[in-house]
Structure formats: C-alpha cells, structure tokens
C-alpha cells in the first residue's frame, strides 16, 4: 500500500510538472471579449423584441394573404418518404472496418478501399502502386495483418501493424516494386479525420432515413435530443452527427457518445476480454444475446427489458462495469462501438438473425443518449 501511494504521489507530481509546461498566458480579456462579441450578434438578433414583433407581423400577414388567395386548401405536408442514408458501396475487399478511411503520411495518402491504394496529398491517384487485393478479416489495436497490393509493377505483400488506434505501419513481406516499398514501408500513416462526406449527413433530427446496408434494411427517424443542465454539446453533436459506416454496421456519434449497429461481425465470447475465443457472429436471438452479454468478467448486465421494435420482440440491456473486475472495453468490437462502464444494448431480431445496437456516453450525457436510443429503436421500420 505504501508503495502504491508512493507511485501515486510521484505520478501526481509528474503530471503537475508536465501540466505546468502548458502556456496559459493568453490575453484573457481579449479572449473573453472575442467570445462575447462573436456571440453577441446572435443574441442581439434573437433578443430584439421589436425585431421579433416585425417578423411575427410579416408572417401573419403572409399567412392571411395566402389563405385569401389560396382558399381553404389543406396545407401541404412533408413527404414521409424515407431519405436514403446513401451508404457508399465499399469495394469487395475483405478489410477490417477499423482500417477504413484515409491515412496520411509524407505527402501521400492511402485508402485501403479505394481503386488505387496510394494517391498524392491532393487526391491524385498513383495507378502504378495499384489497389488492395485482399486483407485479413480482423485486426485489433496492435495486431498485424497482411495486405496484398496490385499495381503496374507487380503484386506486393505487406504486413500492416495498427499502432494504437490511429497509426498504421507497413512492412514489406515481398514486393518487387522498389518505389512502392519505399513509400509504404518508410512512412507512419496516420488516420486523417474523415468526417461524414456530403452524402452521409448531417442527419437531421426528425427526418426519416434508410439504413441501406443491412440484409433486412430499415428506416429510422433520427432522434432529437433536448440537452439540459450540464449536457454541454450534446444537441450540437446530434445535429452535426459524425456517422461512420463500416463493414459491420452503421454508427452515429460524437466524442462523448455513440450508437453503433453491430451485425455479421465476429465478437469475443467474453465481451470484456479480447483474448477470449471469437464467436463467428453475435448470437442469433435476443435471448442468446442476453446470455452472451452476461457471461463476461467485467460488466454487470441487466435482465433484458422487452422493447417493441416494428412489432418485433427486441430486448434492451443496460451494462455497467463492475468495480471489482478488470476494465471492460468491449473486446474486439469496432473502435468506438463500446463505451466503457456506461452502455446500453438492444438485441433486435431480423428475418435471418439478430442485430445489435450498442450505445453509450460519458456519465453526463448518458441519460439523454439512452432516451435518444429508445426513441431511435422505436422509430425503426423494417422493409
């Protein structure tokens, strides 16, 4: 115990020393004024009673004129046709979902799913270096997998190590292409922020979308979240959602929360132990999902609560990490799908199996996100 305390105090001291390096000496008056000034225009416009009175009067006049001119016709209603989420068709490369996206390094970028593996920083493809032909199925945080790359200078094989979450390193196993080898293997490729492209969002609360990619697609209504109290940022996060589409599912989320559909992905038999054996897919019924969730060493899982989803008997589970057990990080679920300690899961039956919706948030936002998830699943309608 004494030893622990000693380490803790040394750690605290080192952290404080490190923190003291931070230069916080900005002109705080200027900073505060710039923030107030930036916000003031918004407040002044919204806060002007006279301006609102003019707007209301104009709208009322316009409505009166429209009624007189148009008679008693029924007001047009929004068309309830689901808007497609427009999930792009991925190339048929057997690639771990965590590796999707653009990785940058040394003036070039790679996209393992693009038609050409390497392009310039400006996006110009370099066809000589080819495209990814194949890759292994799964990769963890620091696992390796091999990728075969085709190109005008021949097929090359590489082992790729994924360091932490955002860095790839290539090692040439065999590649006759000297330039490609030098380019791929001499660079640390870091993940480039890939916000949703214009075709993927933002998802507007209240709008209906089509899920697209699933075997049994469904429509859903993007929930609105009324953030209150200390829920700083949550409404904005929903309005400017950060959806990610992976091979195994569909994800919405932001820095402090996420909702991820998991389907047709191998999962650990123990959700909290990524060294436990892999199951080929999530269990096929909601009840079996409950058994699977509960048979772990790191999280307390509630009994399943029935939740109707488009007339189907789905089950909802709340997960909370237990104090005594080792940390639970979701095993090898896709990055970001699982929030440690504070999470909720829905097992929803489909015609062929069961899809799993995982959601979570930090403590402050959890209640609002749980409410949004309930709203989300209740809006789901299978085609």
């Amino acid at each position, binding site marked *: 115990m004494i030893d*622990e305390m000693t*380490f*803790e105090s*040394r*750690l*605290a*001291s*080192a*952290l*404080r*020393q*490190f*923190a003291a*390096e*931070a*230069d*916080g000496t*900005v002109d*705080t*008056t200027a*900073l*505060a*004024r710039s*923030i*107030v*000034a*930036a*916000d*003031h225009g918004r*407040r*002044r416009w919204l*806060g002007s009673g006279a301006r609102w009175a003019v707007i209301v009067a104009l709208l009322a006049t316009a409505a009166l004129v429209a009624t007189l001119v148009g008679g008693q016709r029924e007001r047009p209603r929004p068309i309830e046709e689901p808007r497609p989420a427009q999930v792009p068709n991925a190339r048929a490369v057997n690639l771990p979902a965590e590796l999707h996206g653009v990785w940058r390094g040394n003036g070039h970028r790679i996209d393992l799913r693009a038609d050409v593996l390497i392009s310039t920083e400006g996006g110009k493809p370099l066809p000589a270096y080819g495209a990814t032909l194949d890759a292994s199925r799964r990769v963890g945080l620091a696992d390796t997998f091999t990728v075969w790359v085709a190109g005008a200078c021949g097929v090359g094989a590489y082992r790729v190590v994924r*360091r*932490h*979450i*955002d*860095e790839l390193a290539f090692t040439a196993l065999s590649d006759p292409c000297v330039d490609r080898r030098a380019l791929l293997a001499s660079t640390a490729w*870091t*993940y*480039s*922020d890939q916000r949703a492209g214009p075709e993927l969002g933002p998802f507007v609360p209240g709008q209906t979308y089509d899920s697209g990619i699933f075997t049994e697609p469904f429509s859903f209504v993007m929930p609105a979240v009324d953030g*209150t*109290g*200390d829920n*700083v*940022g949550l409404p904005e996060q929903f309005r400017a959602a950060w959806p990610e589409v992976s091979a195994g599912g569909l994800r919405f989320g932001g*820095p*402090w929360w996420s909702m991820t559909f998991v389907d047709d992905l191998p999962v650990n038999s123990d959700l909290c132990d990524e060294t436990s054996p892999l199951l080929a897919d999530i269990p096929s019924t909601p009840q079996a999902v409950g058994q699977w969730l509960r048979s772990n060493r790191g999280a307390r899982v509630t009994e399943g609560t029935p939740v109707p989803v488009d007339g189907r008997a789905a089950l909802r589970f709340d997960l909370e990490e237990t*104090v*005594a057990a*080792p*940390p639970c990080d979701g095993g090898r679920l896709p990055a970001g799908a699982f929030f*440690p*300690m*504070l999470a909720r899961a829905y097992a929803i039956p489909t015609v062929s199996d069961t899809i799993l919706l995982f959601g979570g948030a*930090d*403590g*402050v936002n*959890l*209640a609002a996100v749980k409410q949004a998830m309930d709203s989300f699943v209740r809006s789901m309608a299978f085609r």
Partner: protein
Amino acid sequence: MCIITRTAESAEAGSASGVKRSGPDRHLKDVSGDTLSATTGRTDAELAADGDDIAFERLVAAHQAEMVRVAYVITCDQSLANDAVQSAWTRAWRKLGSLRDQRRPRPWLLRIAANEARQVLRARRRFSVVEIDPALPAGSAADPAGAIARIDLVRALAHLSPEDRALLALRYVAGLDAEELGRLTGRTASGTRARLSRITARMRVELGDDR
C-alpha cells in the same frame, strides 16, 4: 480565507452593444478562484450567466490557466489545448445559465475543458501521434531521483484513452476529489476511485515502475 482584488479596469455601466457590464466593484476571490461581488453578493458565474461580460472576463482570467493545464495533459499539445479551452469558453458563455451551482463554477469549467480536449483529439485523431519532444524543459534536469521522466510520462499518457487522461488530469492536476469527479462523470465516488486505481495501475505498468 479570502483576499480582496479589484477589477482590472473600470467597466462601463451598460454599453451600446446591449451586453450587461458590471460597474466598478470590489470582488472577493476565494482560494478556488471564484469571485464574489462585494456589492451584489453574486458570483462572477452568476453575473456572467446574466450576460455581464466584465464578470465573464474575470471568470476567464481566473480559470484560463488551470483549464489549459488540464487540456494539455489530455492532448499533450499546446495548440490543441488552447483550441480546446477556447471552445470551452464559448460553450461556457452560452451555457452558464444552465449551470446548476453557479457559486462553484470551477469543476464545471474544468469538465468542459476536459471534454473539449477530448473532442479536439477525436476530431483530429491525433492522440496516437503526439509529438514527443525529447528535450527536457528547463528545470527538469534537477528532478529528484525516482521522479518520473517527462518523456516516459508522455509516452505512457499516449497509451491511455482520452477519457482516462481526462480523469487523471482532473484528479491530479486540478485536484478534484472522487465525489466531485463522480458528480461530473455520472459515476459513483467508489466507481470513480476504482477507475482511477486501474488507470494508475496501468500507468505503473506503462512506466515500468516496479518499485
């Protein structure tokens, strides 16, 4: 145990911009940096929530440095920390009215700074490529034997999730206790202590500290 400070400048009462401004006033500053108007008995957070920009300036001056320190431990990057804290102040200005305990804004502000730091990291996806400056800053050479080396610390931090770094920063840099952290993160105090214990144990492994 309060000390009396004066506002840095005489403020105009009211302004053409419509933003409220507190007049010349004495302000009592407690050890946490939260100030109290001697004439109105209201905190700067309460005044700022009502749109008092001078009170907001005092609030920024009182908490800026500590918020940057917390954000720096999470981002390990000065410019990202600055970005995060600037965003945090923008949020704070807009959300002060929703702060439940406006007499104690410090934990709330620190949490916003920590959350913004996490957001900046996730947005830029940079936490695994932290540039480690091997040169020790001035003064570090005199570290006592047994002290954790800066470069090791930064490397170990880079292996933690932003959430865990935030907990470490709020606990050991800002000095929030488990109850305060629990309130901020929606966990119980014992759950927070357990989490911190795990993070500390992990840091010990990462730092190769086997003493």
